Each structure stands twice: as C-alpha cells, then as structure tokens.
C-alpha cells in the first residue's frame, strides 16, 4: 500500500513540473469552455429550458466539463504503457513483483490529482470570474461530487488501460485511441449534454461507460441528481469501474502471454 501511495505522489510531482504545458492547457480548456457555453446559450435562447438546464447551469456545465476532461484524460494523451510496449521496456515491468495494473493506476491517480488541482480548478475559476458559476448543492452535494469524480477517474483509467494494452497486438495505438476519444467526447456529454440528446439516443448514451466520465459527475454537481438518484448514479459509475477494471486484468493476462518485443 505504501508503494502505491509513493507512486501516486511521484506521479503528482512529475506532472507538476510540466508548468508550461499546464498553463497552455488551462488556456485551451478555458477557450473551449467559452465556446461551448456560447453555443449552449444559443440553444437555450431558441428553447428555454432545453435539456432541463437554465442559463447559469449551462455555463457551469461548460466549465466543469472542461475541468473533468483533463482530470479523466479523455483525450488519452498519457500513452506511456504503449510506448513501453513498443520499446520493449514493458517486459521488465511485467516481471516485477508488483501488480501491473495497480502500478499504473497509482500513477494515474497522481496525475488526476494534479490535473484536478493545477488545471481543473483554474479553469473553473476562469468560468466563475467571467460568467459566474453555481456552487454545488451544499456540503453533501460537494462530497458526492468528489466521490463521483473519483469513480470517473477509475473508469477513465480503465478505458485508457484497455486502449494501451492493444499495443501488445497492434503496437501503434493511434487508431484505437482515436476511436475511444471519439466515442468518449460524444457520449460523455462534452460535445453536448446528454439531456439534449433525442429520446431514442439518450438511454443508450447513458448506458455506456463514457457517461461516467463527465455527465454523471456534472449532474451531481448541479444538483440534478440528489438523494436516491445520486446513489443510483454513483452505483452505475461503480459498476462500470468494477467491470472495466476486471476486463483490464483479463486482457492483461492475455497480453502477458503474448509479449512481443520490438526494438534494438
């Protein structure tokens, strides 16, 4: 347990050194936050109450989602595992007396923690200072939100883990990664809130794991899901987390058997 805490800390520190990239990222996410907010406001202007959101909720939504985007690494920019598979270094990793998946999970937790503090918070602040943002519904709401974000990080990690593992078969994971990013961007609620989706699409979207990354945490933040509903949402997130982590372990076992070394 100590080991994983250390790994997380080390990862946190490592990500904190990428100062320029973090600032650039805050800028990028803020710009996209403004754009998405503007577009959604235009939708509300045409149909007030669309997607069961009001003006301030829409603004909050836009910036919180941008923050969550970086915390859960929806864009899958962290592709270290795949890199190590290509170089062959992963062989050493697999033979260490440490759980491979837990190792990388700890590193991801460190990353997520830094992104949350160093990137998501500034982004939300930008939104708060320019437009004004709703605070979460009370202390209970804030706590539930924290739990939801934690679960989102787990789901995000397990998805990334699976994509990276495809390197064992494909070596170049750009294809699978793009597909995951595509699906994630759309079905997580970033492109448009799931509540705006047509009735025939929304249930499907909610059933997919991607909603766990952004849509569900935001709904808890906005107080759209309270009490029993919130518990249900968290349960869905937890279920996906467990399912995907397990799937990850299964695929990992298959990958270990199929170690392909490329390099030299």
């Amino acid at each position, binding site marked *: 347990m100590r080991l994983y805490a250390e790994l997380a800390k080390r990862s946190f520190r490592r990500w904190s050194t990428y100062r320029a990239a973090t600032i650039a990222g805050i800028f990028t996410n803020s710009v996209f936050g403004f754009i998405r907010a503007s577009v959604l406001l235009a939708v509300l202007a*045409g149909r007030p109450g669309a997607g069961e959101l009001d003006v301030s909720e829409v603004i909050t939504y836009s910036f919180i989602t941008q923050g969550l985007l970086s915390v859960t690494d929806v864009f899958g920019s962290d592709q270290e595992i795949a890199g190590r598979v290509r170089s062959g270094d992963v062989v050493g990793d697999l033979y260490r007396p440490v759980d491979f998946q837990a190792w990388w999970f700890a590193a991801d937790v460190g990353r997520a923690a830094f992104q949350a503090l160093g990137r998501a918070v500034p982004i939300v602040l930008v939104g708060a200072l320019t437009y004004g943002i709703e605070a979460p519904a009370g202390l209970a709401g804030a706590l539930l939100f924290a739990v939801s974000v934690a679960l989102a990080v787990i789901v995000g990690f397990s998805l990334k883990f699976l994509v990276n593992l495809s390197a064992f078969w494909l070596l170049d994971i750009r294809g699978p990664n793009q597909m995951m990013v595509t699906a994630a961007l*759309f079905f997580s609620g970033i492109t*448009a809130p799931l509540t*705006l989706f047509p009735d025939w699409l929304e249930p499907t979207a909610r059933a997919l794991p991607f909603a766990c990354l952004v849509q569900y945490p935001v709904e808890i933040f906005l107080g759209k899901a309270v009490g029993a509903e919130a518990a249900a949402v968290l349960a869905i997130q937890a279920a996906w987390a467990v399912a995907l982590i397990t799937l990850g372990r299964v695929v990992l076992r298959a990958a270990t058997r199929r170690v392909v070394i490329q390099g030299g």
Partner: protein
Amino acid sequence: MQYRTSFALFTLSQFAITFLDFVGILVLFANVDALAGWSLAEVAFLYGIANLAFGLADVFVSPVENVQVAIRAGTFDQILLRPVSPILQIVTDGFSARRLGKLAQGALVFAFAVAAVEVDWNLARVTMTVVAVLSASTIFGALWVATSCVSFWWVEAREAANAITYGGSFLAQYPLGVYGPWLRRGLAYAVPVAFANYYPATYILGRNDRLGAPSWIAFASPLVALLVAVLSALAWRVAVRHYRSTGS
C-alpha cells in the same frame, strides 16, 4: 500488417471524430430550429466550409507543428544543413495520408450543405464559395505556421497553439451571433476566423446579420487571408533567424 490495421482504424476514426462534431450540431438542432437565427442547413454550410478548409490546411500545412519535435530532439540543425527551405522540409517530411480522413469528412458535409441550403446559385455566389474555401484554408494554414513559431521560443507551448488552430476551426462551425461581443471581436480581428467562413457565408446565403460590419465585408476575405499569410511567413522567418542566433 499491424501498422496497416492501425492505419485503417486511424483514418476511419479521423473521419468519425470530426464527423461527431457535426452529429453534435444535429443533436443541438434536435432541440431547436435555429441557432442565432441560422437554420440547420445554413449552419451545415458554415460547418462545411470550415471543415473542408481546415481539412485542406491540415493535410498540406499542419506538419509544421512538428518543428517542436525537431527542436527538442536537436534535429533542426540537420534541417538547416540542407539546401531547401526548412518549412518545406518539415511539411513534406510530415505529410501523412491519414489526414485525408478529416478532409473527406469536411468535403462530405460541405457537399451535403451545398445541396441542402436554399440558395440561388449564380456565378458570383459560386465564385465567392470557392474563394471562401481557399481563403479559409489559407487562414488556417497561416495560423498553423504562426502558432508553430512559438516552439522556437517556448518549446512546451504546443498545446496553447492547438487552442488557436483546432479551437479556431471549432469556433468557425457556429454562426458568429452565438458569441458574446468581445469574443466576436477577437475572432474577427485577433484570430480572423470570422473572415474564413462567416462573412462570405452571409453574402452567399443572402443574410443580413453581419453584426455591424459593412456590406462589402465578405469581399475582404481573400485580402485578410493574404495579410495573415504574409504575417505568418514573416513570423516564421523571424523565428528561424532567432534559432540561428541563439542556437537552441
């Protein structure tokens, strides 16, 4: 074989990922009939021009962002040893057929939009459309070059540059009226994406919402494109000169 599978997946997903932006627009229109007064066909037209132009710039100019990699790895020196202009080397070296996925998507939506939109197509409007696409491509290409110049001073700032290039194309997908006044001004003057597709579209579609701009604004588009191209070429020269003075 492994690379080929990934290539196919990548190209397909490039198509899909950019098409999803349009699906996102469709989702929005499932809730409303117009965005800032623009119908779905009209927004599709905007989107089509922006994406087609961006796709063209992406295929032919975007590899310039690899200059960041060359500087970091120290291989920019090698580029300077060859009797070819550095930007030409970087752009041709980085050419990848994968990017055609995005271009194809843009072209498809553009074609759909042209068919769907209610326009009385005469010579003037057709010319303006062609000019708009070319100007927009030039503007996006110039933005790519200009933002890549940042790598010469601040190697890690690539992501901020992405905000301007990808962000710019994303912005251009929606009618200008959607944005607040200061964002609008920024778009028109600081990062002239508005000239890329919005103003020409107002002319072609016969709309009046130029948001305070004069009636001839659409025709300024190619001039703006030229200006931006010249400015970014200058920026590049300054950047390379800086590299040759400081050696890093």
